[in-house]
């Protein structure tokens, strides 16, 4: 038993380490400070991924602005407000949304935002990512709120607090570290998404100038460079992958750091 589980663990960890070290080995060569701040240039002239890094951050910001408040509100509804069949139905829908392939979300946003506006935009990309975030944030928020002991609710109610003040003043603050963790994990998750951005944010070879224009992102840039026929772009795709991986790893480390303080 011990040796079997040890073997499985070894396999999984080895796979992960191979992926990480291979990306680092392939990517480190093309990495330079200039690469991190330049915008792309034609083949043979170098260029960088500065616009894509900025674009990814802008997309994360847009999706967080839409997705986090909505997701947290849904979570509060599921845990504190909703009862009976309606809450059950909402919970089922949220679970289903979590399982929707992200390309489907992309197509959906293409249909309801990109087509009517007649062009790709950062906004559409942000909305697509937000749609992926909402169910994740909603469920983690719900779980975290349910971990708050019932005795705290009763204690606040017994002091003459109305329900909404109990929720806002006692329950949500008590669950705040957990809710923040859920939010960070959702951000880490969507920062690696490519499919929903392909025909919403589309990609761009320039620094973003407006939320109403197509915008570059690390994932789409990696995709475009990886399928190109040029060796130089392949090398840049590896370097961009290394940057993306470091970004996601960084977010995860921050999450770990935040959760460590809980008791």
């Amino acid at each position: 038993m011990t040796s079997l589980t040890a073997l499985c663990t070894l396999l999984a960890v080895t796979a992960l380490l191979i992926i990480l070290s291979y990306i680092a080995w392939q990517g480190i060569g093309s990495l330079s400070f200039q690469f991190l701040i330049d915008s792309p240039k034609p083949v043979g002239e170098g260029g960088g991924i500065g616009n894509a890094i900025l674009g990814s951050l802008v997309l994360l910001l847009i999706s967080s602005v839409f997705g986090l408040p909505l997701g947290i509100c849904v979570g509060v509804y599921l845990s504190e407000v909703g009862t009976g069949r309606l809450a059950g139905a909402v919970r089922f829908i949220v679970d289903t949304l979590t399982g929707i392939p992200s390309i489907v979300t992309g197509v959906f946003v293409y249909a309801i935002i990109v087509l009517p506006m007649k062009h790709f935009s950062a906004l559409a990309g942000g909305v697509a990512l937000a749609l992926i975030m909402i169910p994740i944030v909603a469920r983690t928020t719900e779980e975290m709120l349910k971990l708050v002991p019932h005795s705290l609710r009763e204690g606040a109610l017994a002091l003459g607090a109305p329900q909404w003040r109990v929720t806002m003043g006692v329950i949500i603050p008590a669950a705040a570290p957990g809710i923040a963790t859920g939010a960070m994990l959702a951000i880490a998750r969507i920062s690696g998404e490519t499919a929903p951005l392909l025909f919403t944010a589309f990609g761009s070879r320039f620094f973003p100038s407006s939320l109403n224009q197509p915008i570059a992102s690390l994932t789409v840039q990696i995709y475009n460079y990886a399928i190109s026929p040029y060796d130089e772009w392949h090398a840049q795709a590896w370097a961009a992958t290394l940057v993306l991986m470091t970004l996601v790893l960084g977010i995860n480390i921050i999450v770990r750091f935040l959760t460590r303080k809980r008791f």
Partner: protein
Amino acid sequence: MTQILNRDLNPDLRSASSVVKTKMAVRNLDFFYGRVQALHNISLEIPERIVMAFIGPSGCGKSTFLRTLNRMNDVIPATRVGGQVLIDDHDIYAPGTDVVELRRRVGMVFQKSNPFPKSIFENVAYGLRINRVTGSSSELAGRVEEALKDAALWNEVKDRLKTSALSLSGGQQQRLCIARALAIRPEVLLMDEPASALDPIATSKIEELIFDLKKQYTIVIVTHNMQQAARVSDTTAFFLLGKLIEVNATEKMFTAPNEKLTEDYITGRFG
């Protein structure tokens, strides 16, 4: 403990209970969890500024009954109440009753201490803030200090009001919860086995506290511990299987109860 017993027998405090008016009156109260009837036709009067103890075996309905007195059972789904509970002759189950206002007047301390994960100060200030009792921050600080003094906790925490309430010991946390309830100056204080999770020293502190508090408050305490009921209360009510068996002056109850069932329970023949 001897000290408490001696004070318990103080004639000045004793005689006071016989002349005061009724604070809360319960008339023909039935209570249901879904289809299960937990309380059967209970009628009881709680005089002002005394300590009344509820005793009885586990599951006899004494905690359920306590929670009907400030409508804390409202938060449990599928519960139903019949009969009347009056506070100063107003029925708290009458339509249009402001439950928030009721719970301000009838405070509660729970079996397990439940301080909010906030600072010591903010725990006590919570009830004052939500009820907008105090105007200025100095007034708020004054009320918090007063409540902590009333709960005999002030000297232990006055230098660390800003630290987390969760850093206090179990007994201190329970006294903090009492302070939190006292801060909004309720007229009645309900205590649901407030010392059951505490060690003897912390328990005796809570008991002394109850003794001091009855000068200002009407206190109803649920306890599993009959010695505790004998020590702190003026009147004792005995519950069995959702029925009120006997209410009597505490000395009478523990020396010569009227009912055979009460005697059997107190002498340890069951329960």
